[in-house]
């Protein structure tokens, strides 16, 4: 049984002649145009006006993100209109609710990250205007990749987001660790891009096109050896595995997450993963759907190793950023479980997981940022001892995120895990679910440990700097929103699943 039988009836891509330039419809990429436009203005403003107030930059960024989000909401309805095309700009950009959903998740994470970033730069005394344009460019890349309907577009969007993030990782000029993280991230990222691009070249060689639906059409009609297409699948898997931080291509993650400024870590841990998985889902479930039985075992194995290695390595960590980095690796494994199912249900579960994951990881890193006074301090677990006494609000919020990351009800993390496991069982992958459940149990240990530290241990005064624990209202709002969402999706998952019913159809 081909799980994605709808895909088998894919119509061939509308043939475009070289000269026949259809009408250019920019509506589906308007959110990206807004983001890039604001970024360019801010870049110029920063260069021309050396005395620019920091607050103005942050507010303009927030306005740009909010504008893009508002336009995405409009697109949610626009794409359902009977006269709206399923892809625009010569098949380069898809216009479906799938991309709108992911755009909103990414823009939400970017919004929170901007608030955190403002606070971080102020506290660390590293106010430099480039932060905001870079953040906007990265966001534009992330949202664009969710809409990419052509391998060229996937590659370009991937590079836009990666290049911006390499620079943001190294944004702290004072800390050597930041520069080091940036270099490691850059070298491994460039390495993985090369694999990804080679995969694109092979896919093009096998099918003569880079348009995702057209590739699917070509592959489903092809008889005979598929060596090139299989090579392409392998190389693309490697490229994506790097970006979503799946084991064994995860080496950069802990270093990049730990070395980057915490606000950047919050942004990239949520944004990159969501964006890369959106592209992963689209490429594998549209373009490579005829090869589903060929890539499934590999993704299966990837999911299993990622869950186990990410879960086990997190135990040994003493630095909370590093622990969360390994946790994000483990979560990539859980999302891959949903991808492996390769069914409508699997896609839906993965999308739910990604939304829940984005909320909880951005919030968790946000709390870490608020606790680490002035830049990068208080990152060891010992700093969290007795946090409930010193700051009940932050402790409670972090406890919500930890419970959600561990997958304990009534949080979004629980529903997310249950739904990907359900999809996997439906697809007959029960051994994978078994591995997943076992690693979840192991993982619960180190999440609960943080909660125990905060609530049941005494804080030893004088051990670490305590003053200035996130008292700023901006920071509190920035972590309260994801916490509320985590609880909301956990208690009323139907809200999100209702949207997903409409959003999990990949149109082409």
């Amino acid at each position, binding site marked *: 049984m081909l799980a994605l039988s709808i895909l088998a009836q894919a119509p061939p891509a509308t043939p475009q002649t070289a000269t026949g330039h259809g009408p250019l419809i920019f509506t589906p990429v308007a959110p990206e145009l807004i983001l890039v436009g604001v970024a360019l203005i801010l*870049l110029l403003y920063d260069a021309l006006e050396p005395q620019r107030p920091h607050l103005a930059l942050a507010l303009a960024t927030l306005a740009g993100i909010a504008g893009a989000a508002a336009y995405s909401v409009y697109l949610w309805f626009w794409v359902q209109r009977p006269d709206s095309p399923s892809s625009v700009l010569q098949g380069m950009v898809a216009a479906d609710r799938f991309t709108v959903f992911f755009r909103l998740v990414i823009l939400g994470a970017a919004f929170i990250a901007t608030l955190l970033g403002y606070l971080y730069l102020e506290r660390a005394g590293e106010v430099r205007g480039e932060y905001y344009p870079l953040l906007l460019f990265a966001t534009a890349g992330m949202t664009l990749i969710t809409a990419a309907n052509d391998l060229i577009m996937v590659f370009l969007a991937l590079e836009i987001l990666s290049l911006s993030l390499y620079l943001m990782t190294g944004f702290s000029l004072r800390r050597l660790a930041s520069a080091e993280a940036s270099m490691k991230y850059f070298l491994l990222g460039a390495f993985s891009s090369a694999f990804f691009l080679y995969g694109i070249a092979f896919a093009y060689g096998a099918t003569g096109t880079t348009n995702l639906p057209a590739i699917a059409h070509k592959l489903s009609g092809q008889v005979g050896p598929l*060596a090139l297409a*299989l090579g392409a699948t392998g190389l693309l898997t490697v490229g994506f595995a790097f970006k979503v931080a799946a084991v064994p291509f995860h080496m950069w993650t802990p270093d990049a997450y730990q070395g980057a400024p915490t606000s950047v870590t919050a942004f990239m841990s949520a944004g990159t993963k969501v964006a890369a998985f959106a592209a992963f889902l689209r490429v594998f479930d549209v373009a490579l759907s005829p090869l589903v039985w060929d890539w499934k075992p590999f993704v299966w194995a990837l999911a299993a190793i990622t869950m186990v290695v990410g879960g086990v390595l997190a135990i040994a960590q003493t630095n909370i950023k590093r622990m969360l980095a390994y946790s994000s690796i483990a979560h990539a494994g859980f999302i891959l479980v949903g991808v492996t199912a390769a069914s409508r249900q699997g896609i839906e579960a993965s999308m739910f997981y990604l939304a829940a994951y984005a909320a909880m990881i951005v919030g968790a890193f946000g709390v870490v940022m608020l606790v680490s006074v002035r830049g990068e301090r208080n990152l060891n677990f010992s700093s969290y001892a007795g946090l409930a006494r010193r700051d009940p609000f932050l402790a409670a919020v972090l406890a919500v995120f930890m419970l959600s990351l561990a997958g304990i009800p009534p949080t979004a993390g629980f529903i997310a895990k249950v739904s990907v496991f359900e999809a996997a069982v439906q697809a007959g992958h029960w051994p994978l679910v078994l591995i997943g459940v076992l690693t979840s149990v192991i993982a619960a240990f180190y999440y609960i440990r943080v909660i125990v530290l905060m609530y049941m241990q005494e804080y030893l005064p004088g051990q670490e700097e305590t003053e200035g624990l996130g008292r700023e209202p901006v920071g509190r709002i920035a972590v309260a929103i994801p916490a509320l969402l985590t609880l909301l999706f956990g208690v009323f998952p139907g809200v999100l699943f209702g949207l997903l019913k409409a959003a999990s159809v990949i149109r082409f």
Partner: protein
Amino acid sequence: MAESFYQSYGVVVALLIGGFGLVAVAFTAARLIAPRRQTAEKLMTYECGIDPVGEGWSQSQIRYYIYAFLFVIFDVESVFLFPWANIFVRLGYQAVVEMAIFVFVLALGLLYAYKKKVLQWV
């Protein structure tokens, strides 16, 4: 005809597997077999038998970075301008506007660099 077409691909795949396999085997073998006794002498950079003096990087001037920067702006511009110049008559005004936006964005980059004093010879 068709057969040889696919055969050529078979060669590529075999080569890919062979290439990576060979490297992997060589490295694991070396790691397993070779004895490792590292001394300061062995770790020293080899330079014609003479002890290396100073930094290996003394030749690299940071100022050459400007070239890289300018190269990107003008290289990117020309890579797209030349194909565009070949066919823009057929594409009409839309193509002109698109290219104008493209060049404008690149010009913004140049202006930014100028304002940030990147273009000064230090």
